[in-house]
């Protein structure tokens, strides 16, 4: 079972302030802590679990500047065997479909049974790379996958739908799945893993290596473009209850009562 996992390095903005940069198209990296995209963490773990069960290799692929090697080393440390970083200043400004195009060039000649991506990335949340990549490769795909079972050259997967419902679909391999959080429990990076990662080489490939031209990628090769970032307009704001925790909770208890929370 040879598996390619596409990963992305993203800032953790769950509890951080997001400040829009002067260009109004990006956010200030500032004090933001960058790490592997949450969904990709599950995707890597799922790939490694399948490798541990069936043998084979896991190859992590990312796209980005030098810093993104941190993310690939994390993949090594948690079980990946190979890593490829796609990097070129021409890639700047690529939209999701262009990114899928770049990754396609890098993986099309690899031997793989499965390609995983995260269902989406926590920064831009497009959720496109996986299915577009499948389309370019001509393989079947399934999105929002919460279980993968392999038998007889086929994958039977659960896809998460709305309202607590899931569906089971079956596809022949090779296939592309976008992995949803909660599918497994991603392991921690161990010190042995860090050591292993340090001894591994990360392959890199640029525009020409991938047989692409500047027209294919970046803003030129993209059909969508983020023009402007802005803070969401305040349509409604909660009334923040002030005071010490004791005072605030006294008031809140009264509000809950008044709103019919208890009698």
């Amino acid at each position, binding site marked *: 079972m040879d598996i390619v996992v596409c990963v992305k390095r993203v800032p953790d*903005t*769950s*509890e951080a302030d997001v400040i829009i940069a002067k260009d109004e198209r990006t956010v200030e990296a500032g004090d933001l802590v960058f790490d592997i995209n949450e969904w990709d963490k599950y995707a890597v773990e799922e790939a490694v679990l399948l490798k541990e069960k069936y043998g084979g290799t896991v190859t992590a692929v990312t796209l980005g500047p030098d810093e993104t090697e941190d993310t690939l080393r994390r993949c090594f440390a948690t079980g990946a065997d190979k890593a490829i970083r796609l990097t070129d200043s021409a890639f700047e400004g690529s939209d*999701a479909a262009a990114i*899928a195009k770049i990754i396609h060039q890098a993986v099309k000649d690899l031997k793989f049974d499965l390609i995983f991506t995260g269902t989406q990335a*926590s*920064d*831009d*949340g*497009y*959720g*496109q790379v996986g*299915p*577009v990549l*499948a*389309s*370019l490769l001509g393989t*079947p*795909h*399934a999105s*929002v996958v919460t279980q993968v079972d392999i038998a007889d050259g086929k994958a039977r997967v*659960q896809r998460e*739908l*709305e309202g*607590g*419902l*899931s*569906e*089971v*679909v*079956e*596809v022949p391999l090779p296939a592309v799945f*976008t992995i949803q959080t*909660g599918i497994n429990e991603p392991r921690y990076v161990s010190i042995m893993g860090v050591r292993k990662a340090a001894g591994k080489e990360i392959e890199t490939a640029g525009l020409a290596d991938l047989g692409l031209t500047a027209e294919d990628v970046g803003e030129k090769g993209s*059909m*969508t*473009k*983020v*023009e402007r*970032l*802005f803070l*969401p307009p*305040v349509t*409604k*704001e*909660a*009334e*923040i*209850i002030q005071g010490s*925790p*004791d005072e*605030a*909770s006294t008031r*809140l*208890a009264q*509000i*809950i009562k008044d709103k*019919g*929370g*208890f009698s």
Partner: protein
Amino acid sequence: MSQIFVLAEHRKGSLREITWEMLNKGAELASRSGSELVAVLLGNRMDSFAGELAHGADRVLVVEDEQLENYNSEIYQNVLSRLLSEYEPVLTLIGHTAFGMDLAPSLAAEMGMPLSTDCIDVDLEGDKLTATRQMYGGKVNAEVSFAPAKQYLVTLRSGMFPAEAAATKDGKIEKSDFPPSATDRKKFIEYLEAAIGAVDITQADVLVSVGQGIGDIKNMPLVEELASSLGATLSCSRPVVDRKWLPKGHQVGTSGKTVKPKVYLAIGISGAFQHVAGVKASTIIAINKDPKAPIFRVADYGIVGDLFQVVPLLKDKVTALKGS
């Protein structure tokens, strides 16, 4: 006349709300741009849905076949790519749902169309399309432009537009042939319903809902005790289920349940869109240490503070108030 397509979404015998949300938005765009609004309905024995949709669209384009009984991205894509080539709608709207997330990107790739996903708004001025979407967990909005194209594809986030079934139009129903499928690789096997536990959060009057902020399964008693003092039911956001701190049946949000209690108390929940989309409460109260958490934009009342401090105090106050 240019056309705007809305892909109807239905599952297990019901039209999904997103369909009406898109039709309502689509009607607005169509009237401003002088386009025809077309509901596209794929399925098996679709007469009654087609009738319903005719009230909200200028035309209903129906493709029926047994193979369309349940959603299958490959078969759907095969039908849609033919319809898009044939009718050339300037804009096609698909829901940013498990269905749309699976279908839209590869459809756009096959057709070479520009696509923006998970949009919260879309605007069509002449043939210039702009979309608004959210980034960084809803902390930032982005305006997205599209390269000039004959056709565009947008997936719209649920809950952004009115879901009332429109009755303003009397569209005609038109059937189109089911094209033979080029591939039959992907197979739908079955639906699985999440095991419903002892609780039914959709029926609760008061929900104490807990998020990732609780930090660990060992801290759950904190919220359980508050819930019990309130006589409330315990629910949660997705990360709590992902970490197996509560069973799936407790999850509120798009991939969980939609709830409609009188009071919804969100504790340590940041308020990601996917969560708040499932909250239709009369009063929403949030306790979160991050004053910029998106939950405060949907809540009616909030306390900015440490839940480990506030929740035990709140429990005491509720107990005291009950006794008085």
